[in-house]
């Protein structure tokens, strides 16, 4: 699957890593849903780092659309709440 970290790059993540990725994402989502900011930034940073470490960067001249788009690394708690649960990164 191809994952984009907004403001950074697209990464190609092997299917074998998918389970771990979804686990980490679920963790972030759970924190957001709890409404308490504690632990959010660490959990989100871990998710992004996982993608950067395990994923293979998509070449700049390779045109691919992503299966998953993650908010930028400096996303605030409030922004992330609306990104993950509300209108999404790009409002319609």
């Amino acid at each position, binding site marked *: 699957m191809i994952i*984009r970290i*907004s*403001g950074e*790059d697209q990464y190609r993540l092997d299917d074998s890593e998918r389970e771990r990725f*979804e686990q980490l*994402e679920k963790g972030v*989502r759970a924190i957001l849903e709890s409404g308490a900011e504690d632990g959010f930034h660490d959990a989100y940073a871990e998710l992004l780092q996982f993608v950067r470490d395990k994923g293979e960067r998509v070449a*700049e*001249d*390779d*045109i*691919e*659309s*992503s*299966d*998953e*788009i*993650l*908010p*930028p690394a400096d996303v605030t708690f409030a922004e992330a709440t609306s*990104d*993950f*649960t509300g*209108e*999404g*990164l*790009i409002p*319609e």
Partner: protein
Amino acid sequence: MAGLTGRMSTVIKAKVSKLLDRAEDPSETLDYSYQKQVEQLQNVKKGIADVVTAKKRLQMQESSLQQSVVKLDTQARQAMAGGNEDLARAALERKNVAQTELQGLDTQVTELEQQQEKLTDSEKKLRAKIEAFRTKKEVIKAQYSAAEAQVRISEAATGVGEQMADVGLAMQRAVDKTENMRARADAVSELEAAGTFDDVTQLGSGEDDIDRQLKQLSSQPAVDEDLAKLKAELGSGGAQPTPQIASGGGDQAAGQGES
């Protein structure tokens, strides 16, 4: 997986297909979307230029505040040496406000610098994708049947569209930040325009409105500390009976010459 991903790609796909629907012939579609991409790239460049302009403005404000800090410091010393503690305090209060603003500006300039770097990087990536699209479109034109070409165009355009949307998002974040900074910078400009950081020796004897506001703004302990330091440095300045600065216009030259 719900949420973010689905929505973002749906929006992009909708935009791309709207774009592609405008032309009947696949090769026309290709040229049209390429042309649109190049236009968007120009907008990105313009956006980056705006960030640079905002940064330069803040930097100019920074240097003028720096001058004010030096000037007010000098005036505080002169006032203290002349035994006019009230005037020295007024100068230090203003210096304190100017310094606080200066620190704020410094943080903002650094932030804008980072935004600019990110945007430049995104612009570079978008340019690479558009260039790849240009190559690809010639291949599609030459090699595929109309129906197949339609599908490939859509795929390629969506891919570039996503990069474009991402740059757009980064740009929006930069613009929002710049807007916040502008509001703050304008507030500083107003203080400057009101003469807050100008020559304190021009102050009358009574407290004016600015003074009262400044007292609220400046952190009193810091000013007290500065004042104590100045006193210690200059020895007990109060021994000199003539408050030279407050009394006449003669010593104003020191302050005014710099501005």
